[in-house]
């Protein structure tokens, strides 16, 4: 087992979770819980793959994926913001709808393997020579990984230090007050649900065009969208913690795959090597850890009194009492 290799591919897989989680953070900061991340990622993965196959250009695929997922997210926005329906149930509905759309449109894409272009990979000259860290963070990674590095601080800065970011937070905390100050509550919410969709689409495209190329129906995302929704809670709506959570999870997923290889672990004979069926317990680990992360996140939030955005999940109706 090469730990540098595991951590490096952990970063790569974690990048997918990073985009999806930060996208959901944007939506939730504006007060809209969107449980449709998994479905939107599927839409992204499918349309990226389809468009890249059609145009022979991975970048066009990426763009199409973002727009497609963004478009689908507006179904949820319309139902929850304009029609004021329950956000949980609408998010679930979005999942069904998006999964159905991507299965229908993705018909026959699986056979296109090896024909579809992928996003490029780079090593950063200089930085990749740093012992340990270079191999983990800067060596032969997809370009989406590097964009991810830049994206984390930018997202944090945007949310916490800019005027539009302040508007975003105020709409999620106290929309009535934001409204009296002339901030367009409905528009802001539509916008950030759209942003969440764009980023979920980006995450999906990152899977199908780069991290594990291909289209495998529902298995393409394998529940990562749901893990992302869980990570938002662990991340306490902070992009840096989202990145930490995403990369940790990525490494974990990879470690689980690699643990079956070696004959011995720390000098003891490796039970996962000799009984391959124990591998099924290894596969549970990412999902178990999501639950553990949730417990940690909820306890910490309780202790520090960091709450969810106060208006999360509540429709805003102008002129009505309440938040």
């Amino acid at each position, binding site marked *: 087992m090469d730990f540098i290799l595991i951590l490096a591919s952990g970063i790569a897989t974690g990048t997918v979770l990073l985009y999806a989680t930060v996208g959901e953070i944007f939506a939730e900061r504006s007060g809209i819980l969107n*449980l449709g991340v998994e479905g939107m990622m599927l839409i992204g993965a499918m349309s990226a793959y389809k468009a890249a196959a059609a145009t022979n250009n991975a970048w066009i695929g990426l763009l199409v994926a973002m727009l497609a997922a963004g478009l689908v997210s507006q*179904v949820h926005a319309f139902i929850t913001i304009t029609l004021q329906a329950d956000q949980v149930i*609408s998010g679930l*509905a979005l999942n069904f709808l998006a999964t159905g759309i*991507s299965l229908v449109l993705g018909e026959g894409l699986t056979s296109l393997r090896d024909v579809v272009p992928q996003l490029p990979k780079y090593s950063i000259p200089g930085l990749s020579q740093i012992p340990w860290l270079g191999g983990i963070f800067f060596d032969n990674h997809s370009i989406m990984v590097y964009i991810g590095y830049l994206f984390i601080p930018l997202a944090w800065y945007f949310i916490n230090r800019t005027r539009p970011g302040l508007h975003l937070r105020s709409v999620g905390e106290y929309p009535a007050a934001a409204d009296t100050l002339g901030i367009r509550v409905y528009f802001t919410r539509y916008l950030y649900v759209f942003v969440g969709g764009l980023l979920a689409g980006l995450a999906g495209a990152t899977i199908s065009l780069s991290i594990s190329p291909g289209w495998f129906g529902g298995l393409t995302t394998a529940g990562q969208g749901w893990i992302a929704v869980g990570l938002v809670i662990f991340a306490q709506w902070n992009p840096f913690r989202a990145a930490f959570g995403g990369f940790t999870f990525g490494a974990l997923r990879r470690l689980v795959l690699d643990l079956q290889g070696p004959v011995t672990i720390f000098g003891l004979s490796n039970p996962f090597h000799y009984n391959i*069926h124990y591998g099924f317990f290894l596969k*549970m680990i990412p999902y178990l850890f*999501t639950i553990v992360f949730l417990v940690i996140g909820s306890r910490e939030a309780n202790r520090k009194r960091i709450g969810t955005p106060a208006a999360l999940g509540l429709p805003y109706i102008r002129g009505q009492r309440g938040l």
Partner: protein
Amino acid sequence: MADISVKESAPKWQFPFKIKIENRIENPPRWLSPVLSLAAVIIALLIGAVVIKIAGGDPWAAYVHIAKFSLGSVGVLSDTLVKAIPLMLVGLACSIAFRMKLWNIGAEGQFFLGAFGASMVVLLPVLPMEAPKWQFILVTAGFGMLFGALWGFIPGFLKARYNVNEIISTLMMNYIAIEWNNYFIYGVWSEGGFQMSRMFQRNAWFPRLTDLAKRWPFFGGLTTHFGLVLAIVAAIILWWVLSKSRWGYEIRLIGDNPRAAEYAGISIKKNIVLVMIVSGALAGLAGASEIMGVVHRLQGAISPGYGYTGIIIAWLAKLNPLAVILASILFGALILAGREVQPSGIPTLIQGLIMVFLIASDFFYRNRVRITRKVED
């Protein structure tokens, strides 16, 4: 002269009606809810037709096919009911949880654990091989409910104790349940290295209609099994609990107004755990009945997403346990006959569309749309 001036000042053509949306203050009429649900299903089917057309298929033929091969004869109707049985039970599981606004998305995992529990009775074995049928029915159903309840209890406890979001935890439990079953399917109970257990002996199976064919030949070949009785009984009991019992009142009150419930001295935490246990037990019973009534062995692909479809069914039935029975038959038909419709994602898409339009239609339940003639100022 006057004519010209009139022409000049004539107002531009305006939309002659005024559309006004206002909150419903009075109770909506009783017919409105089913009509809206029906409209949502019809619109979803229409859009599904457009999609099939775009994908190069013949929508009319596809729908006729679905209707014919799900409800067209006694034989296929029986198969539709077989598909509807697990849907009824998971639909009930979702209904009771959703009534308390407890989002149990984990019916799928609880279904798998129920299947595991029932298989355990035969394979471990808990009962001897030659035990009478009634014992198998009782014990397999019981074990299915027990394991499903356990799978529901875990997220319920985590929610009550640590305030862990149940949507995510129940969903994660689904993935864990599948791997758990796989361990036994591929490893412990694998028959000769195949990814399935041995076939259960016949006296362990749930009785089926075709078993009665000796006395009434009419039933020959009909696979509808005892699970249907269990599902309908469960629906009636749940209907009674939710609408007539004190506990049902507590559940509904927590769902509608948790703060009021708390002031009334109702323990929310206790009810979270209890409702998750009952919800899990119902989904577990679905898994047990599917294994003992249809599959007759433990294997991998035992569910085409029953647990998730249960969510839509619960919503279509407006969380009414008796309406769940009807909604399940509709979806049983869609799943059964939709298998041959191309492209293969169409049934999933139609389910998603139904759900989206159902939720959107709730707007017209909560609000009334008034169209009045515009009055000149």
